């Protein structure tokens, strides 16, 4: 996905056990902060087709 031109910060793989609640909160906060910092990605918003 990074290769097609999506910011690498939007993609994260983490290994969180069901017992690791603190880590889960930390990961979620980090990811949301990173994505918020990037702002919305509008590449996938479909433009209305040009009037043909």
């Amino acid at each position: 996905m990074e290769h097609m031109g999506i910011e690498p910060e939007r993609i994260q793989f983490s290994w969180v056990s069901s017992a690791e609640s603190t880590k889960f909160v930390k990961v979620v906060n980090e990811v949301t902060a990173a994505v918020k910092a990037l702002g919305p990605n509008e590449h996938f918003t479909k433009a209305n087709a040009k009037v043909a």
Partner: protein
Amino acid sequence: MKIVKVDKKDWTDGLAKLYRTYRLFGPVKEGAFHCFRELAEGDRPDFEFQNTRLSAKGIIYPQSEDMFVYTLDESREDHHILKEAPKDDTPRAVLGIRPCDAKAVSLLKLNFDTPDYKDPYWLDRYNATTLVGLACDQPCGTCFCTSTGCGPYHEEGLDLLMTDAGDHYLIKLLSAKGERLAQSAGWDGEIDGLAVMENRKKAAEAKITQSIATDNLRAADTLALHQADFWEEISFACINCGTCTYVCPTCWCFDIQDEVHGKNGKRVRNWDSCMFPIFTVHTTGHNPRDTKLQRVRQRFMHKLKYFVDKYETGIMCVGCGRCVQHCPVNIDIRRVCELMNSHAASDACAAEG
């Protein structure tokens, strides 16, 4: 029929005048090939081409077009009720369409403009469009238009036909629409160019080396052709892509789809292809044309037999050769037509004998 002479030095000037009244479309070279694009003000169509990769059919009949829009928001009074999508039916002109593509438009008209139903999308755009043909003085080696009821100077479907005569164009006005366009462009230098055009036409026709025979198709027995044993061999190589149908100027099949984004939706029409298995599959999973043999047969039978029987205006092929050039596995309609036509002949002999 009136013929006007337009000096090439005045060409840009004429385009500028046309631009005031018409949306202009013309061939443009993009990368390795020519395609039709809308011309911005000041753009010139590029006539240094043999034929465009895709035909001009998409200008009247876009590959994707919105039909209706609607809202699914139940707080709105008109929710779930379909309304016409915005359309642009202002006058448009296609500059440099080849006679084969223009003849194809008149074949498409048979499908979209019927006594029972009129397709408003196709027809409104057709009515808004003036076709300025560019005669074909350098036909491709794969062209066989002269044996499909068409030709490099064929006028059917065109509003004007122009030929490149060195430092000027000769332009023949073929319809009221064509005369209006010529008037808008200021093309009024009438001359007696008929003989020149006729000579050029003969020279161009002589360059068409390929031909197909279609004389037995009309009388052929549909079911005998359908059951002919050559279909396995013809269809073997087919990979079931839609290339032949999408590059074809006379293929018209389409699909209708709903697309929803949030609470807003639209109904869209897209080109479809009889080569795709899902074209005919029933909800039950039953597919009347389940095998590629059946689908390949359908395409050629439609073009060369069903259409011939239904409209009695000849075959549904203008001989542009695009499918021959671009089929990824070299299935050649000229060869298929030959097999069908000669099968029909042998079939008739068998019936008589």
